[in-house]
């Protein structure tokens, strides 16, 4: 099981380099395409700082497209990392924040915040976090005691909690009679259109340390996949590890949900795809998920902006349209 350290480092570096390149290419595409046309060369010039300052393209690239692309990368990284963590902790390939109801809980919190008229940050983010924590506590209580690691109980509770959350969201939407309804419906489908650089910076300042904490726990995640007794005998404090990982993941997910709405399937597709490509070692998978998930989300958001002739569609539509069939395909291949 133990892999030699230098070899491991090499694998992490190799995966990170390849995926960073993919991420950079996709980010460049995301920055150079949008609802207004401009040549690739002009975009290059602006990015190199050689464009005319204060030109329209300059504003569009630095103040509209760049924050949006960065936000998409952060959201994608968080969601696929969230999926990876839940799949490891619950030892179930179907686990994902969206499916477990953690996203749904944040959405209920966030919608309540919006209806109370709170500001997007920190007001709505806080209500979203309390929503997701409430769901998490509920999940843990429902499958409490030694049953924590029994994957079916927790997953089944999660699926039911998610259905319940969906019902509450529909209830809140249907009793809302005013103009805010429009915003909520778009936001529910995943909306990245209103990102400014300050908001992205705050988000990054909270999310990046979370990524590091999860990377720090990645070896423990490997051991926990081998089973409770095995992990304990290898010196992993299971309870502490589980609570840390669950709380950190919920914090990350609720933050991204309050910023960008409900975006599903990223946490299923990316970890599975990467596991197929680079194997099950979480020490490699964690950085790979951050980079690969980011690239996937930037790509989906780009499609959401470019496909419709007028306006744009919610990014969540694209992630689900690509994600669900891909997931079914993967599932079939796993079975064979």
């Amino acid at each position: 099981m133990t892999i030699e350290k230098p070899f491991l480092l090499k694998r992490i570096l190799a995966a990170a380099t390849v995926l960073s390149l993919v991420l950079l290419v996709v980010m460049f595409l995301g920055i150079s395409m949008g609802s207004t046309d401009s040549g690739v060369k002009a975009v290059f010039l602006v990015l190199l700082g050689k464009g005319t300052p204060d030109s329209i393209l300059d504003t569009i690239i630095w103040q509209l497209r760049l924050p949006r692309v960065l936000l998409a990368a952060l959201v994608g990284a968080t969601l696929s990392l969230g999926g990876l963590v839940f799949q490891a902790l619950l030892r179930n390939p179907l686990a994902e924040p969206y499916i477990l109801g953690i996203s749904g809980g944040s959405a209920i919190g966030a919608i309540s915040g919006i209806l109370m008229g709170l500001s997007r940050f920190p007001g709505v983010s806080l209500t979203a976090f309390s929503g997701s924590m409430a769901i998490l506590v509920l999940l843990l209580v429902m499958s409490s005691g030694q049953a924590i690691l029994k994957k079916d109980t927790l997953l089944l509770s999660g699926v039911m909690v998610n259905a319940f959350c969906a019902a509450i969201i529909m209830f809140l939407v249907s009793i809302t009679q005013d103009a805010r309804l429009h915003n909520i419906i778009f936001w529910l489908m995943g909306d990245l259109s209103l990102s400014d650089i300050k908001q992205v910076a705050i988000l990054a300042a909270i999310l990046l340390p979370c990524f590091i904490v999860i990377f720090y726990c990645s070896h423990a995640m490997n051991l926990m996949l081998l089973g409770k007794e095995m992990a304990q005998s290898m010196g992993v404090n299971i309870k502490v590890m589980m609570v840390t990982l669950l709380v950190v993941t919920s914090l990350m997910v609720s933050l991204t949900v309050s910023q960008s709405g409900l975006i599903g399937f990223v946490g299923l597709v990316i970890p599975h795809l990467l596991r197929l490509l680079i194997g099950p070692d979480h020490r490699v998978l964690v950085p790979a998920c951050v980079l690969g998930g980011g690239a996937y989300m930037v790509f989906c958001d780009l499609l959401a902006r470019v496909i419709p002739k007028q306006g744009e569609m919610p990014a969540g539509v694209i992630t689900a349209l690509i994600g669900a069939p891909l997931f079914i395909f993967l599932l079939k291949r796993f079975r064979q």
Partner: protein
Amino acid sequence: MLLESIMKIRRFIIVLLFLMTTCFLGYAPSFARVVTDQLGRRVRLPDNPQRMVALAPSITEIIFALGQEHRLKGVTMHSDHPEAAQKLPKVGSYVRLDLEKIVALKPDLCIAVKDGNPKKVIERLEDLKIPVYAVDARNLNTVMDALREIGQILDANESAEKLIRNMRSRIQRVKTRVSKSAHMPGIFFQIGISPIVSVGTDTFIHEIIVLAGGKNLAKGPVSYPRFSREQVISLSPDILIITPMTGSAAFEKVKAQWSRWPTIPAVQKGRIHLADPNLFDRPSPRLVDALELLSRLIHPELFEEAQ
């Protein structure tokens, strides 16, 4: 002693603040006007805006009505009146504005509506150094206010006043005519088909129904209340007015649905009417057209006498 020094410091601060404000006021460049818009924001207006973007169809109509369309460089989706507006570049719909398209048009002034355009978008435009003036056009009076405000901004005071006078006299004419009738039919104004949605008291359609001599059966605190079929039947409306967003084929379908309920007085008397949704879905100067149309539908007897 201590008290005295505190007083001194306080006096000093007051003088300092006074000096600072006077300096600031004196510093403001004279070529740009700073006005307060209907959102209570201070907006620095360009002197002679040449590249305007209207962020709602109603604003487009107001600018065209003022004869200032040469200043307009962009409009929102569904800005279909007058016909010339359809040819202007579109910047998304009024609830989902495309920031990139707006920036690319390089506007020197955007006109927004207070309720409708998301506040976040307006803030983002401000961040991008694009001045946004928000008007609060939501019924006949505020449409006239918006006409006057935008007229002032665009140096078109005269045509604004002329339009307002014209609107006032047409409203008055309808009022006088309707006052001759003692009878106020109950109206169910259906703006949403599935679910059935009508209009509450705080809407311009309610205002028009009342001015046109009708009784709005859906009045109440909720602006756009939903109804079940049962509730509508029990309200027994004398007239059903339907504004389908999806064309007249949808109207025939809805009409057929209602016709299954002969207990409704409107069905008995065949008073189910189609109204052009474009007239009724935006608070533009054409609200007066809507008012005249509605009063004719509600009180056809008064118009027959007049002819």
